[in-house]
């Protein structure tokens, strides 16, 4: 999954402090990108679904069993059909946005905070700190991500909290690398040297001077990681090593639907469509953010 990162957020670093007007230009560049705005609306719709699932979904996702409609095709009552227990697929997809966003959000936050901090320290202090932290990150990165996540899940057991931990661990080194590369560029900048020369302490330099200037690549990486985390949660759940089996997760729905595809294609097709749409939305927004934050990279 993460191997599919084709974009390099580190290149969006600024070594010179951006002018005040830059922020507005960035926002304008971003909002002019129609594809990104479309992606942003999909994300907004997902967030809305996640928050208001209880009111938006026509049926209960777990207990809303329609005994007269097992595996019934899309109809007026069930626009996306029902699954083998007679549960409404649309309602389960709407509720699935909750698990998907929650799992992705918390795991990316863990990776951002832990990886970002480690990378910041490694890139700023260099020397032994850098050598040790970088080797540790190299070790984690040496495992193909889905395999590492699977192994962690095998040890911890299939539960939502463990999914979050596993994905968080897997993506930590990626944030560490991005933050490290950015911090290394920034630490050589004249304004950091000036701050050091006038006796500003390291913690203050890191928080007030380095962090704001490496925020751009971290923001881009966060958005793109959301896409991969959504994919990872779905993949783990699909393999039966993700969230609890009765949960309304897109990956679980796909797993249930796969075996009955010949008689009920809708159970497998629609959840997959939801995953694709969500991942696509975060990818377009991530791409557009990178272009907007550093127009030199635009192709």
């Amino acid at each position, binding site marked *: *999954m*993460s*191997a*599919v*990162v*084709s*974009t390099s957020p580190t290149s969006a670093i600024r070594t010179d402090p951006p002018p005040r007007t830059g922020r507005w230009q960035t926002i304008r560049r971003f909002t002019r990108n129609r*594809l990104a705005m479309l992606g942003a609306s999909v994300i907004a719709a997902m967030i809305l679904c996640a928050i208001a699932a209880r009111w938006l979904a026509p049926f209960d996702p777990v207990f809303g069993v329609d005994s007269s409609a097992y595996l019934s095709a899309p109809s007026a009552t069930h626009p996306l059909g029902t699954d083998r227990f007679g549960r409404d697929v649309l309602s389960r997809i709407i509720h699935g946005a909750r698990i998907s966003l929650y799992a992705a959000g918390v795991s990316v936050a863990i990776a951002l905070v832990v990886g970002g901090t480690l990378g910041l320290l490694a890139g700023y202090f260099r020397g032994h700190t850098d050598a040790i932290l970088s*080797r*540790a990150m*190299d*070790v*984690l*990165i*040496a*495992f*193909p*991500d*889905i*395999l*590492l996540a*699977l*192994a*962690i*899940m*095998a*040890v911890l057991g299939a539960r939502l909290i463990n999914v979050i931990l596993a994905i968080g661990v897997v993506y930590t*080194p*990626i944030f560490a*690398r991005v933050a490290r590369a950015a911090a290394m560029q920034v630490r050589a900048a004249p304004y950091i040297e000036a701050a050091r020369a006038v006796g500003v302490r390291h913690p203050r330099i890191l928080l007030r001077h380095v962090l704001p200037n490496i925020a751009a690549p971290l923001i881009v990486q966060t958005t793109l990681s959301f*896409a991969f985390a959504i*994919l990872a949660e*779905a*993949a783990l759940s*699909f*393999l039966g*090593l993700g969230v609890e089996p009765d949960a309304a997760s897109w990956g679980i729905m*796909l797993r249930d*639907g*796969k075996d009955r*595809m*010949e008689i009920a*294609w809708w159970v*497998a*097709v629609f959840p*997959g469509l939801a*995953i*694709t749409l969500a*991942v*696509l939305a975060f*990818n*377009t927004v991530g*791409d557009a953010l990178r272009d907007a934050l550093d127009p030199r990279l635009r*192709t």
Partner: protein
Amino acid sequence: MIGFLARRILIAIPVLIGVSLVAFFLVRLVPGDTATAMLGLNYSPAEAQVLREKYGLDRSLPVQYAMWIANVARGDLGVSSVGGRSVTTTILRRLPMTLQLAAGALVFALLSGVPLGVISAMRRRRTADYAASFTGLIGISVPGFWLGTILILVFSLHWRWFPSGDFVPLSRGLVENLRHMVLPWLALGLAVAAVIMRMSRSTMLEVIGQDYVRTARAKGMTEPRVIFRHALRNALVPVVTIAGLQLGYLLGGSVVIEAVFSLPGIGKLALDAIAQRDYPLLQGVILFVAVCFVMINLLIDVLYAVLDPRIADGGGTGGR
């Protein structure tokens, strides 16, 4: 160059040690040990004690690690706790299938990704470019396991062109083997094709803007000649690197694709090991794949340095 090689290999050694530590301790985090797993319902403290002594499980963790790593260095990954077979033999028996899956997916990705990326760059900001770029975005967004499911639904359940899964080894005929591999290749390769397409497009755009390409055009060279003789050759260097790095993704991605198509490869082996709580086997698979991945990265860094000697002065290309 020799200095670069030495440095690069020196970096790989602590990473390999770290990888072995993770593989060793990850499995030790599971409640119970190999002895309880092997005995299962026949568990008795006395028999467990015998097994623990036999496999050195009664020793301290550092001693256990030392014993384990000494065996690993000799190519002995231990004994499966279900069935008692050699882990190394089991992995090597499943390896050809996964290699065929990954290699086929990579070939598909290169054959579709590079031409699409080049065309996209040539037709920059025109319909073909937008169409290709959007396809690329979709390619990296579609989950392989869903794509595989859809491919089975359309091409094997509906049209019945290809079988919906299972593996036929090459020894049972090339045609049958290929028929079983086409859909898995597509499902696994699409995401990589998209990455390669995006990479080829951006490196191609970079190269087209260079002076020597303009000079070639100014000399009156025909456009295909400019593209193939000058631009493409230089644009392909980073693409080769990315393609190599994707091998790691392909090894990981094969877990999911092998599950979708019921292919008996390394990925399926890992899943079966998890389902049967066969931790020595799981440990062996994880270690094997990670070591392969480290070696591939090392090889690519070296290859990259050979292709582009300037790299040897800078640094490696990194992991994922």
